[in-house]
């Protein structure tokens, strides 16, 4: 490896740093300016100035607020504005992100100055500001295009996730909501979830059903979608375009409308029961309090109704890339239709769709709507504030939104997050998509 490509270690930098690099260590951008890179130096300096203004103006206060979560309770009647713990938590996270950003800029400033020093030592000429900017449209173009998405991810994904994780370590919920002050409680919520006598049995029951639901519904949707795609791929099927468009109607209707429609269909006064009673039989409680397995099966079916079309479309696209000669050879070699499916089609489709399969699994694991709309508003004996069709996400809703325990909700969210992440990682790292990435290239 060439010496020039070796990564700079902290030790190297500290040992070999020249005057300009040391100045950059003291004041961001100063070293660059002394190397004649005025524009870049000013940018670094501007970051420093803005950081100082931000931290003096509110950053330090926000950072301190992250630890205290407020000291003065608000009282609107007395005109005391007080502290809003939740806002303080949020602003505290933002200030922590600002600190990290500043540290990143600071290190980047030192690294840049050190690289320039090395360049000068090799007899090179430091790049001008314009040249440097041009790089962002050329060699460093990836940085330009990634800037906005990264910012978006930070604000809309990372910030809420960090916020939710931190809520799990507070007492935010119940009667402790702003204007009352929220406090840090360490791992008390996790201890409570694990040790509360009513809680653990419900958690285990719901988790078991949730895993079963996610596995079965993913498999049903996947194979039904694939089956439909294979069927509509057959030469003998007439009017393929029409039949392919038909399931899309189910997909196009908003999910909750479909669910409310099915709820009505299976209610006591709905059309299904009207047919049954019209035939002289007693009405069936498809979704009522006693309908545990009946309601679960209806849930599987309706979920398939909603999800199968998307899988069918996906599989149709993938099947169009199938190697026809391979299928022809297999047929000549005497492979049965099932053998062709088992050994050629399935591995081919599975290879391409494993990531989709994982996202389907996660989506089904966290499928809030199905049982919320079909059978919400029931607490069944033996379950703590839940029913026998509730998934963890529904239970989470009951606890956090219906019952206001945001902290317990966040704790369970974290547990769900860990479970789904582990399962996803396990499936993905063991899949051919991951292990044999080049197979179908």
């Amino acid at each position, binding site marked *: 490896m060439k010496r020039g490509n070796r990564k700079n270690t902290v030790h190297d930098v500290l040992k070999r740093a020249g005057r300009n690099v040391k100045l950059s260590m003291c004041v961001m951008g100063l070293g660059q300016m002394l190397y004649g890179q005025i524009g870049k130096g000013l940018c670094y300096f501007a970051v420093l100035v803005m950081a100082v203004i931000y931290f003096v103006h509110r950053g330090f206060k926000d950072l301190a607020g992250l630890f205290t979560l407020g000291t003065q309770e608000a009282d*609107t009647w007395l005109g005391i504005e007080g502290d809003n713990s939740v806002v303080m938590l949020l602003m505290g996270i933002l200030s922590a992100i600002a600190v990290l950003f500043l540290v990143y800029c600071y290190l980047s400033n030192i690294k840049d100055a050190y690289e320039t020093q090395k360049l000068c030592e090799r007899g090179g000429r430091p790049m001008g500001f314009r040249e440097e900017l041009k790089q962002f449209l050329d060699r460093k173009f990836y940085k330009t295009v990634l800037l906005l998405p990264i910012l978006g991810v930070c604000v809309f994904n990372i910030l809420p996730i960090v916020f939710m994780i931190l809520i799990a370590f507070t007492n935010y*919920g119940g009667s*402790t*909501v*702003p204007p009352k002050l929220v406090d840090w409680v360490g791992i008390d919520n996790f201890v409570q979830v694990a040790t509360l006598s009513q809680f653990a049995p419900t958690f285990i029951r719901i988790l078991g059903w949730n895993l079963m639901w996610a596995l079965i519904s993913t498999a049903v949707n996947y194979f039904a979608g694939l089956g439909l795609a294979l069927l509509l791929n057959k030469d003998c099927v007439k009017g393929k375009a029409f039949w392919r468009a038909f399931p899309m109607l189910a997909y196009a209707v908003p999910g909750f409308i479909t669910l409310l429609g099915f709820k009505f269909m299976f209610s006591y*006064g709905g059309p299904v*029961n009207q047919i049954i009673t019209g035939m002289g039989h007693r009405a069936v409680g498809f979704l009522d*309090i006693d309908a545990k397995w009946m309601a679960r099966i209806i849930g599987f079916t309706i979920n398939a109704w909603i999800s199968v079309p998307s899988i069918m479309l996906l599989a149709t696209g993938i099947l169009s890339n199938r190697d026809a000669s391979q299928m022809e050879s297999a047929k000549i070699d005497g492979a049965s239709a099932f053998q062709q499916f088992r050994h050629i089609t399935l591995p081919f489709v599975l290879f391409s769709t494993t990531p989709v399969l994982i996202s389907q699994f996660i989506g089904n694991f966290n499928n809030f709507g199905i049982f919320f709309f079909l059978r919400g508003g029931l607490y069944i004996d033996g379950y703590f504030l839940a029913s026998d069709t509730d998934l963890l996400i529904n239970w989470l809703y009951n606890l956090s939104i219906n019952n206001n325990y945001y*902290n317990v909700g966040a704790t369970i969210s974290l547990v769900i997050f860990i479970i789904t992440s582990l399962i996803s990682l396990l499936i993905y790292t063991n899949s051919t998509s991951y292990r044999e990435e080049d197979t179908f290239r």
Partner: protein
Amino acid sequence: MKKIGSMILAGILIVGMMSGCGGTGTEQSAPETVDGDAKEIGADAAELKGIYSGELERGVTIRVLENDTAISEGYFQELIDAFNEKYAEYGIVAVDANMDQYSNLADDGPYGYGPDVLYQANDVLMKYVEGKHIYPIPAQSMSCYDMIPQAAWDAYRADVDGTEYIMGVPVNIQSSMLFYRKDMLPDNWETEWDKNGNQIPDMAESWNDMYRYSKEIVDRGEGKFGYMRSLYDVYFSSGFLFSYGGYVFGDNNTDATDIGFAAGDAAVGANVILQQAELMNEDCIDDSVTVSAYSKLADGTYFATMTTPDVTSLFLRELTNVYEKEGLSAEEAEKKAEENLVVTQVPKLPASGDLTEENPELIPLKTMGGVNGYAISAYTKAPNACLAFVEFATDYEMVMKRHEYLGIVPARSDAAQAAGGISEIIYRNLDQGDIVIMPSIREIEQVWTPAQTFFQDLAKDAFRTTDKKYTSIDLIKEGLESVDQQIYDAIHTLAGGQ
């Protein structure tokens, strides 16, 4: 300057009071006040001087969160137009807050997004008290104070830091009424079904007679029913428990550690529901009856149901349609519908809880009710202007307009008296304590699902062929105790660390 402003405001309030007195129409003499000897409740204007200076803020805009129906029916526009005209000289303008009627002030208010004035049910408004999200009202100094019964004010009474406050101004009382078809009464009802000869059919006066008549209808085997109702609905079913000693929370619905669905002989009341379910079909288990009651009462499948009076127009519309299909003109159909749809107070219950008992001792059915009213956001920049708006919206004239537009039951005695009919009945029931106002504490939110599950289970039991769960009063009581426990768990178990 402040003194002058205060005098102007005082003058306006006096004029408002006088207009409230004088605007009752030609047939109305000076309005009668209620509870003449009732003690004054809540902090008075002097105690709330820190909030309401008495000086109207000038050039302010008040965002008012109103009920969706009031907006769609045009009442709200009329209200704000009248208010804006009256307060134009102060530059005060009331506008539609343009928010979801169920938006949460506690979430929006602190960040400046909430409304300044809110119109909602007492249980919704009172959940804002704990965080002081709404301001107390100087009720005693308002013109409507003496016109509204104590029970309605009680729905807005709160103890904060050891002082009692009134947090909202009652406008409208909600409760259950019996709806039945007069033309479906037996031909001989005046001789056979009017024991006391008061020209009111017995089935509208006693649940035992309603049960007997429902059985008669069902036994005809024509697929028709007598009394029908979705029994899972806590709002309508819990009254049967209250009538026999049950309650939601102890200490006048303020103590959330004492949950009383199983208290007293509430199980006897639950057994009444079970007996009623036996004469219904499975539609009573879920919301099927609620959804289809309008059309099925109109087409004669149901004889009677129980619901709130604000949906009377929907029943009338359906019944009119049926009559029109039968060949009557629109005008005749409407007239006939109004004649045949009777909305009256709910029947009385047997003290024994046995619907088959002949000549039982009767007790009143206590129904769950609510009091909708106005409250003022604690995040408003113009509390005095908001108070003036509330004063304006709760005066006699506007409340009567609200009644005309929306068919509400006024909380004001003078308006209820002038409105007559259902309004008078509900007003009287509230005054007599036969309407149990929904608790005004935050914990009420945790009551609905456990109670709803129980009522659904109870209704389902009537149709279980094997493994019936509620075969005795003791077993029903156990079920109710389990409801109490679930509610307790929902409120307190996870609050351990709070």
